[in-house]
């Protein structure tokens, strides 16, 4: 195990841990908001569904962060996810039925 870590480097691990703590947490929230706004169900039902799924979403993102081969993919992926869910939520809120 120690040799495996040495191969990828400690900085590499630290970068992924940071990605899992901060951006992944924010992405979980934006994904939850996006899903709640995109859901055809009523407002309460949609938000409750997002909340109930929140930690499952977070866990999937964490597993993805630690499974991807290249560190670059992790960061570009997180950025893309944040931009898509963030702007998507904004569009849905501003122009959607709930706006």
């Amino acid at each position, binding site marked *: *195990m*120690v040799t*495996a*870590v040495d*191969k*990828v480097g400690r900085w*590499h691990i630290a970068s*992924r841990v940071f990605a899992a703590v901060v951006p992944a947490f924010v992405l*979980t*929230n*934006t994904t*939850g*908001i996006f899903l*709640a*706004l995109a859901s055809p169900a009523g*407002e*309460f*039902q*949609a*938000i*409750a*569904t*997002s*909340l*109930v799924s*929140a*930690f*499952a979403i*977070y*866990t999937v993102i*964490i*597993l993805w962060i*630690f*499974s*991807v*081969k290249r560190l670059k993919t992790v960061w570009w992926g997180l950025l893309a996810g944040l931009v898509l869910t963030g702007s998507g*939520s904004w569009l849905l*809120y501003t122009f959607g039925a*709930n*706006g």
Partner: protein
Amino acid sequence: MIGSFRQSMTWLHTWAGLVFCWLLYFVFVTGTLGYFDTEIDHWMKPELASLDKAPIDTRIDTAMSHLEANAQGANRWFISFGETREEPYLRVFWQTPGETEDDPPENTNVTLDALSGEPLDDVARDTGGGQLLYRMHYVLHYIDSQIAFRFVGILTLFMFVGMITGIIAHKKIFKDFFTFRVKKGQRSWLDMHNLLSVTSLPFQLMIIYSGLLFVTILWMPLIAVGSVGFDTKKAGELLDLGGEKIEAAGTPAELTDVRAVLAHAEATWGEGSVERLNIYNPGDANARIEVSPATGIGLLPETHVYDGTTGELIDSPTLPSSGALSFASTMLGLHEGLFAGITLRWLYFLSGVLGTAMIATGAILWTSKRRKKAADEQQSRGFHFVEIMNIGTIMGVLIGVAAFFWANRLLPVSLESRADWEAHAMFIAWGLCLIYPLFRSRRAAWRDLTWLTAFAFAALPILNAATTNAGLLTSIGKGDWTMAGFDLTALGTGVVFAIAGLYLTKRGVTREVPSEQAAMEVAAS
């Protein structure tokens, strides 16, 4: 990240599992004991063992006269009728508003002897009881409970990640279920870890994910707030399931007969179905009496609201129905297991034990895999730290729990902050167990602490018989199976650890070094 997908997941399983494994072990031990919280309360308050039961009307009268005498000016009264597993005793609670709007309301809780009306705290010894053990599993101890609750949420996320990656990592998890290689060092620990995890997998997934649901709104409020355009007020109203609060009219009015209200509610839900009721604005013209039947698996029951002066049924509010909300309340209900009868309660307890053992074997496996390497290398400080934490925690938390029970019987009843000292005894014992392995070889420390655990539990019935008149034989004679059950469980726990101690002692004599075959398998893996 490292090699194949499965290798990456194995890496994550190892480290997500290790980081908080000792605290998670503590959470699992105290949470598992929490399934028997009121039974432990019963043992820890032997003075109440001979309390007589009272009919429901007497209980209502006792509760109402206590509230009328002590809770004037409160805006909420609450009565729990008692004589259930959850609440064995009659309990009243009242909430008095603070001096100004900003002051927090003052809450008072009193359990009563239903026959004499005497507060039970005056009768029973000062103890944290099973409730304190139960609370420790989600708010720890010595730490601000709000912070600790959020922190336990983080631990739970680590556990969930560990659980999912564990399922992925063990590709032959269900096939290996039938494999158990005995006395093969590392392989045996791996097989045991797999066996424990697979047998209790559905329970673990339920208990961990529902654990996360408890902290979801604390950690992810942004989802609710963000979904309504960051309007915190709207989000608050949307998620407030408490219903409307009725304001007091300010004109006094006599409260209706609570017995009649209860009789009306039980006509709908069945006799004995109501275990508690709330009275809002007692003594005011706008008084309301709120009644709910005992909860099933889900935690959100239907409610009847009565006018507090006329006793008329005025509303039966239903909560917004939602698939997600039903899922959440069912999961939370399953987590708490309040609905469980005695057989299911034991299954809950055993599942908790399996989960606790899963964490323990995982932590031991970590050292077992690395022992040879750590011996070869100079840099083995991390390894020794884990090893000492393992010995001192796996046995230490159990010895701590036993110390908590010993302190309950040995501390003088008149001692100032007695309940606090019971908890101190627990953590002092755990602390000493963490220090002990520093001065002993690994094998000797495991062996000694295993024997100490065996003694600490097995001797509890003797201690109980010597210090109270609720000893094992007396309890059995009286048919008090809750008291006797505690003693017998303690004895059984002691016997299990004595068997483990015997095994470790024998092994220490015959096998100071691991057999050649086991060593080769470790090297090959």
